[in-house]
């Protein structure tokens, strides 16, 4: 596939993520911050985010495994995940966090477990799409480098 076609494929793929509500305009802000002084910025931020998100989801899972759930501790983790999701533009994941926050506020353990299932699904979907996006970006960089 030639460079122009790859770039179009990437653009269309990101657009589809916007249309599906997986990403929102905040992700465009992040793409706009990538330039020659920060050529790998998008990949670095996505990697940071995924590492943070997986750690937090595991902690939430662990907390909900206790008989007596520490809801204030849980709230702190939800807050972090919602914050990083909104900062990277992960729209559906951010919305899923709001469900968990509400269940946590209500001290509803069963509700929290259901909300965590949704968060896990949304995160897995997002991670798969980010991996595809980064694969396209790397292919573009490789082609551009070969053409120089």
């Amino acid at each position, binding site marked *: 596939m030639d460079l122009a076609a790859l770039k179009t494929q990437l653009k269309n793929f990101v657009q589809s993520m916007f249309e599906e509500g997986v990403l929102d305009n905040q992700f465009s*802000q992040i793409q706009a*911050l990538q330039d020659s002084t920060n050529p790998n910025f998008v990949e670095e931020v996505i990697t940071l985010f995924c590492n943070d998100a997986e750690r937090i989801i595991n902690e939430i899972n662990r907390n909900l495994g206790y008989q007596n759930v520490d809801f204030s501790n849980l709230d702190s983790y939800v807050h*972090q995940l*919602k*914050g990083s999701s909104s*900062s990277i533009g992960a729209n559906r994941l951010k919305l899923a*966090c709001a469900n968990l926050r509400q269940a946590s506020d209500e001290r509803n353990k069963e509700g929290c477990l259901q909300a965590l299932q949704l968060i896990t699904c949304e995160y897995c979907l997002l991670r798969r799409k980010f991996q595809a996006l980064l694969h396209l970006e790397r292919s573009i960089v490789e082609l551009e480098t070969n053409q120089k």
Partner: protein
Amino acid sequence: MAPTLPSGDQASDQDNWDNGRLAHKRQLLTEIVLRNRLTALVVGGDTTCRVLEQLLLRSYGVQTQGVDNGRDAIALIASGVKFNLIIIDMILSVLNGLEATRQIRDMGVHCKMLGVTACSGESERQAFLAAGVDVFIEKPLDPEHLVPILRELDGQ
């Protein structure tokens, strides 16, 4: 915004792509030219948010430092480092954002403080403002909120 074509030449797909991205970037980042050297401290427990906030500030030419907890923020300020702007998260480890804000103000620091949080409600807003922040916003930190603050600090 349509890409700019070089006069007399057929623009390549590469040119159109690059011009399009540049125009998009300008549109999104609301260009601002700072006349003065501004400094900012970002106090945020979440790495992704802190890195993004710092880079957004740097893209506007603001020199930034970042710490991930309230205690380190207090220690840095107590060491004599001055900032024009402090961006502080409500949820922090070791010392939470509300208490860290109170202590920073108690130290006689009068610079602009912007409180950020992922989950905003009226009670959180009131609590953060009462602790001493000047502005309270829900994440993400975006140019729409940041640029007016930077212009004000720059005397524009």
